[in-house]
């Protein structure tokens, strides 16, 4: 079973986000980029499938700041091959990224492609279904469980309210992972450092990143606080008394 995992790095929301002087993009000066949380789950799911049924796991990511650490961490978790796609990915949208991944994936000829179901900076759809479109493969997203059989996979697709749809998908296919079957495992720093010495990151180059298909941003701005809650202050006793008053007003008490 040849599994390929597509990963991207996204803005870390712990840091404060600001708009740059162009007014249509995020200021990169203090921007920290981290692995897309759902892609981290995709890596975990891929490793789990390999541990259960054998096979090879390849992780592919664009060459942007922080990518080496992401790839070596994946290796420490059990990924077999690491591929970095080189190109100028600044301000690149998902359509371009999916097209860049397409060339690499065609070379690897995987049975299964896993990627996060979405990312926090998606504005033109998500990488998974875009990639499926480029490769003309089936796509199912919001996956929280995968099992593999000869040439087919049975997936658990999440719907709201805890409802799950079990679907059969013919391979090769692209799956958008919502949650791996177990939370992404911890990797000791020493293991990652060891991988930096023993693993290699292969490189592929893409010429020209084609962004056609995404929207043009007219204006980017921070969400206004807009209406803000009326704040209740005072001691616990005072706040509790105010709340009881509000409950009475609302007819709840």
């Amino acid at each position, binding site marked *: 079973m040849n599994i390929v995992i597509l990963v991207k790095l996204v803005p870390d929301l712990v840091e404060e986000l600001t708009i740059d002087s162009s007014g249509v993009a995020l200021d990169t000066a203090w921007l920290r980029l981290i692995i897309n949380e759902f892609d981290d789950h995709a890596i975990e799911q891929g490793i789990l499938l390999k541990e259960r049924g054998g096979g090879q796991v390849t992780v592919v990511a664009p060459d942007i700041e922080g990518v080496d650490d992401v790839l070596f961490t994946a290796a420490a978790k059990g990924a077999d091959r690491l591929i970095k796609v080189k190109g100028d990915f600044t301000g690149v949208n998902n359509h371009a990224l999916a097209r860049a991944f397409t060339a690499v994936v065609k070379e690897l000829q995987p049975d299964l492609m896993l990627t996060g179901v979405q990312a926090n900076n998606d504005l033109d*759809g998500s990488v998974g279904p875009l990639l499926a479109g480029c490769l003309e493969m089936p796509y199912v997203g919001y996956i929280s469980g995968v099992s593999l059989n000869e040439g087919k996979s*049975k997936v658990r697709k999440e719907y709201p309210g805890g409802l799950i749809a*079990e679907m059969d998908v013919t391979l090769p296919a692209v799956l958008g992972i919502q949650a791996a079957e177990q939370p992404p495992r911890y990797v000791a720093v020493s293991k990652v450092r060891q991988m930096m010495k023993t693993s290699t990151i292969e490189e592929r180059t893409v010429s020209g990143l084609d962004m056609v298909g995404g929207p043009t941003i007219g204006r980017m701005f921070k969400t206004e606080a807009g209406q803000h809650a009326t704040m209740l202050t005072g001691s616990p006793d005072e706040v509790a*008394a105010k709340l009881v008053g509000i409950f009475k007003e609302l007819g709840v008490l």
Partner: protein
Amino acid sequence: MSQDIYVVIEHLRGQVSEISFVMLAGARDLVKGLGGNVVAVLLGHDAQGLAGNLAADKVLYFDHPALAEFTSDAYQKVLIGLISKDQPRVILFGSTSIGTDMASTLSIKLGLPMVSSCRSFSAGGKFVSQICGGKIMVEGDLPGPTALVTMVPGGYKAEQGQSAQSPAITLVDVPALESLRVTLANYIEPEAGDVDIAKEPVLVSVGRGIQNQDNIVLAEELAKALGGVVSGSRPVIDQGWLATSRLVGKSGKSVKPKVYLAFGISGAPEHVEGITNSDTIIAINTDPAAPIFGVAKYGSEIDLFDLIEVLTEKVKQSKGG
């Protein structure tokens, strides 16, 4: 080619999802500026009844056993034919487990531009999307000639997309649906026998701030005193501290209580999505910058552990013990 706005209706097991009505409301907003009709696109099997209260100018209905429940392959095959032929101005999809299975792939297959996470449309037919956990807004012209748009709730109320009158339904021929690569095997129900939080008038909801499972009993006491039940945000359910049926938010339930009391919940968009139909939201969070204060009517920065038991006592007292 037309200026029509097509809305891909989402339904699951005989129920039209709320996002469908939100999209219809959005579509109505768009046609005000762009002209054209709001056209509901309904795929299903023996599902005409689902069109009953859609606020659309007309319904295009595709009937086939393979469309009875959503699967990405079958639905896409139908939509590719429809969109290529009709070339509407905009096609709206839900930013959901159903809509996102289709929209991006269709963008590539049809060579049509797309915008995702759209919350509303502003004057002149511009899209307004939210990204980065709801912290950043993006506005821009709707790309042309045909744009695929996925929508998130929050910008329009579901009622605005509902109609008392049934729109006209046109039955459309379905293309051959064979060699489908994605098929539905079965559904798995969530744990039964628990409360339906969507029907409760008072919800005492807890987030990460509750810190551990043992503190949930504090919320339960308050909920009991107020005649409600306990619900939670994703981190609490993920830890197994509350059953999945208690999850409020994008992957859980949309609730519409009289009072939604949020304790230690930051207010990430995925959660807020589930509470926008509440009458009154009251948020307790020690972080003054928590996004929840932007949707709550009342709030307090007080530590929930300082407040909750005192509040429960006062509520009990006001009821006379």
